[in-house]
């Protein structure tokens, strides 16, 4: 039967060709040079004002960065993060209207190792970026992704904020800051962190092994993003920053939202695409560029000569269907061309959602109900009622060797007797592990992959599934995994004696 839903009125008409009145909608005098959104035309001057104001307003409205705080800017070299850097520079300058008041630092993570770029290529890019960073006067840190192998497993635990953060309101903090007339400038000698990339060849090899073992580009992108994030958070923490600023723009976030849904990250949408991300506890991530469309950023950078460096990523020059993210980007961009409100509508959806995190506590005892990799609350509780997750477990189970199918005690709704069609096979080759929820009987996966499953959210499970062996993951992840499993076992043993269920 026709599945058309009755309430979609088909109101979305394609946009009409713009009439060429060409006057700036703001000052109404100068000729417009740019169209943004659906029909707002700006002249160069008014656009600059609008652009600059939006950045300050975004930070001012959210009141999350306190004066004097140390904020680490994650710059990827791309237009959005470079634009963000430029805005921070402008905002901190002495004569700025509504001056910004925090202390910035820059971090760049060179991912060339995962992409298989040569050391020379990587060094070239780093040199270019370094001169850009030097010109800002801010301290900067340039790290190769290979440093993930030196990360401590504590990076996967939520840390409580340092006790330095007093219970004062934002306004009071600002007033106090102005009164004491603190200066945000830094002495130049504190600037340079590294003159060259310090890469350990064995680490590069390990990195390439990891990414080589991943079958799909989708999973590669996801894991790269995860590792990058861990490294960013650790850098912020170890260098004394309390905030991390990411340069995701509106277009990018709309694509990310839709891609996240396609990857099973519905529960984590708000935290993945919202303005602030509190999952790490002490380091808060903010996205001040989220109201800018990619077009606005590109145009501004071009008009006002904001430098950026083109750096290839995993999906550069790939086809549309190479990965979920790539496909989503292509889809959204094409749809946006026909229906100009696409990006803003999708983006607005993220503002109406929330991500439920387990209640914070001072002890780190709650870590078992958070995903090992993305640190969001687990969304894989198999309960009595039907769910997509449970359905996938059942499907896996039913498609495999019946003879060795275990009784899954974790999901009581599964019937212990699987009648099935006539079979004379007495028993098949299969593993004896019970309560594994399926998946372990497949010859494709090594047993190690299964052991991580219970510690991962739905989406991260999918990523690890595409790895031929989870053993290749960096040590900090594996040791934390083992630690959590040991604790979980302990808990199981003494469960009946614990008075507080949540501990």
């Amino acid at each position: 039967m026709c599945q058309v839903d009755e309430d979609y009125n088909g109101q979305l008409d394609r946009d009409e060709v713009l009439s060429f009145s060409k006057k700036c909608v703001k000052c109404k005098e100068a000729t417009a040079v740019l169209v943004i959104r659906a029909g707002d035309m700006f002249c160069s001057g008014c656009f600059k004002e609008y652009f600059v104001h939006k950045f300050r307003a975004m930070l001012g409205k959210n009141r999350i960065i306190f004066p004097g705080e140390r904020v680490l800017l994650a710059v990827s070299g791309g237009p959005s993060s470079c634009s963000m850097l430029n805005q921070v520079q402008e905002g901190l300058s002495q004569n700025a209207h509504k001056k910004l008041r925090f202390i910035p630092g820059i971090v760049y993570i060179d991912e060339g190792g995962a992409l298989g770029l040569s050391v020379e290529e990587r060094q070239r890019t780093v040199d270019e970026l370094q001169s850009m960073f030097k010109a800002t006067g801010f301290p900067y840190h340039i790290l190769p992704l290979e440093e993930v192998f030196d990360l401590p497993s504590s990076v996967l635990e939520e840390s409580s904020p340092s006790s330095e953060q007093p219970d004062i309101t934002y306004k009071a903090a600002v007033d106090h800051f102005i009164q004491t007339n603190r200066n945000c400038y830094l002495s130049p000698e504190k600037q340079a962190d590294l003159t060259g990339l310090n890469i350990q060849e064995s680490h590069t090899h390990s990195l390439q092994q990891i990414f080589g073992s991943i079958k799909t580009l989708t999973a590669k992108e996801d894991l790269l993003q995860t590792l990058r994030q861990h490294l960013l958070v650790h850098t912020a923490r170890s260098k004394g920053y309390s905030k991390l600023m990411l340069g995701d723009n509106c277009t990018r976030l709309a694509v990310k939202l839709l891609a996240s849904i396609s990857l099973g990250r519905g529960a984590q949408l708000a935290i993945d695409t919202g303005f602030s991300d509190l999952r790490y506890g002490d380091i808060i991530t903010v996205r001040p560029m989220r109201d800018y469309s990619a077009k606005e950023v590109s145009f501004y950078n071009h008009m006002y000569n904001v430098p950026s460096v083109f750096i290839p990523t995993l999906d550069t020059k790939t086809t549309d269907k190479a990965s979920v993210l790539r496909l989503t980007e292509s889809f959204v961009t094409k749809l946006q061309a026909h229906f100009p409100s696409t990006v803003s509508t999708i983006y607005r959806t993220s503002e109406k959602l929330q991500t439920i995190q387990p209640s914070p506590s001072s002890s780190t005892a709650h870590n078992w109900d958070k995903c090992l990799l993305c640190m969001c609350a687990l969304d894989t509780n198999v309960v009595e009622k039907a769910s997509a997750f449970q359905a996938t477990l059942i499907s896996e189970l039913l498609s495999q060797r019946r003879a060795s199918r275990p009784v899954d005690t974790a999901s009581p709704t599964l019937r212990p007797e699987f009648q099935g069609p006539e079979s004379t096979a007495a028993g098949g080759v299969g593993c004896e592990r019970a309560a594994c929820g399926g998946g372990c009987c497949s010859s494709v996966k090594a047993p190690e992959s299964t052991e991580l499953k219970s510690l991962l959210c739905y989406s991260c499970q999918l990523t690890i599934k595409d790895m031929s062996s989870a053993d290749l993951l960096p040590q900090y992840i594996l040791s934390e995994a083992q630690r959590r499993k040991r604790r979980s076992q302990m808990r199981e043993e003494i469960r009946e004696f614990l008075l507080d269920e949540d501990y």
Partner: protein
Amino acid sequence: MESPLPLQSLRVGGAELLFDGVKEHQVTLPSQSEPWDMKQLLVWIQRNLLKERPELFVQGDSVRPGILVLINDADWELMGELEYQLQDQDNVVFISTLHGG
């Protein structure tokens, strides 16, 4: 128009990978009887400058969605997009907004 049409410059930002890594091109379009418009320019670029993967730059008659086009530093949407007729010493810039930032 009788004489050939020299453009002041043709620049590609973010898409230089498709143009042999060259960011800025000095282009002189051959003379023809009708004026050159953007639509024809795209065809010309595809034939003469694009080194690989045309589908990452053009789609059908126009540029791939996600690629910004500026003519003399103004949004081509304000100039008629494909219908805009090129003038002597025009400055055309293509900026890719896809992945990066």
